[in-house]
């Protein structure tokens, strides 16, 4: 619980994917494109399904560091897609545990957590350059 009660440092946010995606590395721009909806596949051709936390410090740090948006800006970005028929909102979860459970069960799912997850359930992804 302590992880959610205080300010989470940027380095605490880790990117995780479903194990079947066979992705271990991603660039900052690819990550941003996946979460802003302009990219729907990883570089190896497999489908990417971004998932989000509904809110909280981990969500805010992830958006600020890897997408360059505040939560409000990010919401506006997706509402534009949703209300013009160009896209559907990424799925949101109330907790990291629920998000991890979904990522572990869904090929292509990619999300973020604040603590090192079970390596048997999901794959941690490193960020390489821009």
């Amino acid at each position, binding site marked *: 619980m302590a992880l959610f009660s205080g300010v989470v440092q940027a380095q605490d946010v880790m990117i995780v994917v479903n194990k079947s995606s066979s992705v271990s590395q991603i660039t900052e721009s690819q990550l941003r494109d996946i979460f802003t909806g*302009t990219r729907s596949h990883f570089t190896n051709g497999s489908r990417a399904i971004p998932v989000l936390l509904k809110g909280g410090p981990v969500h805010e740090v992830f958006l600020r560091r890897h997408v360059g948006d*505040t939560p409000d800006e990010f919401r*506006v970005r997706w509402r534009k897609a*949703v*209300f013009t*028929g160009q896209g*559907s909102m990424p*799925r949101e979860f109330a907790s990291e545990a629920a998000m991890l459970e979904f990522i572990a069960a869904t090929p292509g799912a990619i999300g973020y957590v604040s603590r090192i997850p079970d390596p048997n359930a999901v794959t941690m992804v490193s960020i390489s350059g821009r």
Partner: protein
Amino acid sequence: MDRFGETVMFRCRLPLVILGLCTSALFAQDLENLQIHGFATQGFLFTTNNNYLTMKSSSGSLQWTEGALNVTAPLSERLRVGMQLHMYQMGELGGPNVLVDWALGDYKVSDQLGFRGGKVKVPMGLFNDSQDVDSLFVWTLLPQGCYPDDNRDFDLALLGGEVYGELDLGHKGSVGYRGYLGENRLDENGGYMLQLATYGFTFPTPPSGRIFGGDLRWNTPWHPLTVGSSLQYQRLDGEGPQGNVHLPPAFLQIYYTQWTKGRLEISGEYWRAQMTPMLLTQGLTMQISYDQRSWYPMVSYQLTKKLQVGTYYSHYVNQAADTSDPQNYSKDWVVSGRYNFNSNFYGKIEGHFLHGTGLGYYPQQNPDGLKPDSRMLAARIGFAF
């Protein structure tokens, strides 16, 4: 059945087919994959002179309500269907009728190539396809020279299809493209129909015509600078008991740029539309030439987490007419503020300093004529989910 009848039947059936696909998707898919979103807004307008946008704004008007509800569902990894219903009331425009805003099937082959078919939004400039989604903007009214609220339903969507994609240019950024082809028609409760009515023309079926065009958007490597251009070709024909309206092929060109960095956003657009609509009645032809040039610079800044402020200058002039006559130009200085009460509720307030009467005024609501200048207060509250 003649071609006109087939077209009407196509128009009527297509949204139903899309709705059917949505319904099928509802039953075929896990409900967790279904998304429902909507918004509702209520506006207020007060002007010191003249009545604006068909509202009795000189007395203060609340006759400005809007709402939409959409449902989307994935049918497969590549195919998605959806539909949005929309209603608006702006003075004498719009009405209680619920309209299909968009209803489409979206097949995404890859990030580089996708297709949408049905009733799809038209990409023109920075905001055309999203101009009816109030919750996206700090502005209560977008620059009316480019995005006139009284005529927007004609510009918003077409019945047809579009091809779209995003091409990665590596170190040179990326290019988003959209090309479309179809048919659109005047909104029977919109501003163009009201303008035609001032000339004594009514139409049992709103005038319609072929439309095609495209939009090219370069996301430059100097992130977050975007530059782009939209081009559009449009024609229109309508037959009524008092006569016909004919719009020979009209050409619209748009150039735009946007720069967003942190809390600051700067945008600008230039629009040029050349057209010569004709009204034909009893052997007489009335021809009106337009060479409309519109542009604006705008800047907004997020002051705090909840408060955003901004300003823009909107300029419109019809170069084909006497540009010193106030009815042929509209210049508007705007100061705006938006407060987000939470992630769903927001409120906006905006001051306008209007010069010229070239946009947004109708003789029906201004029977005593127009004064060239006016001040305006616009406010809006909204909810989106």
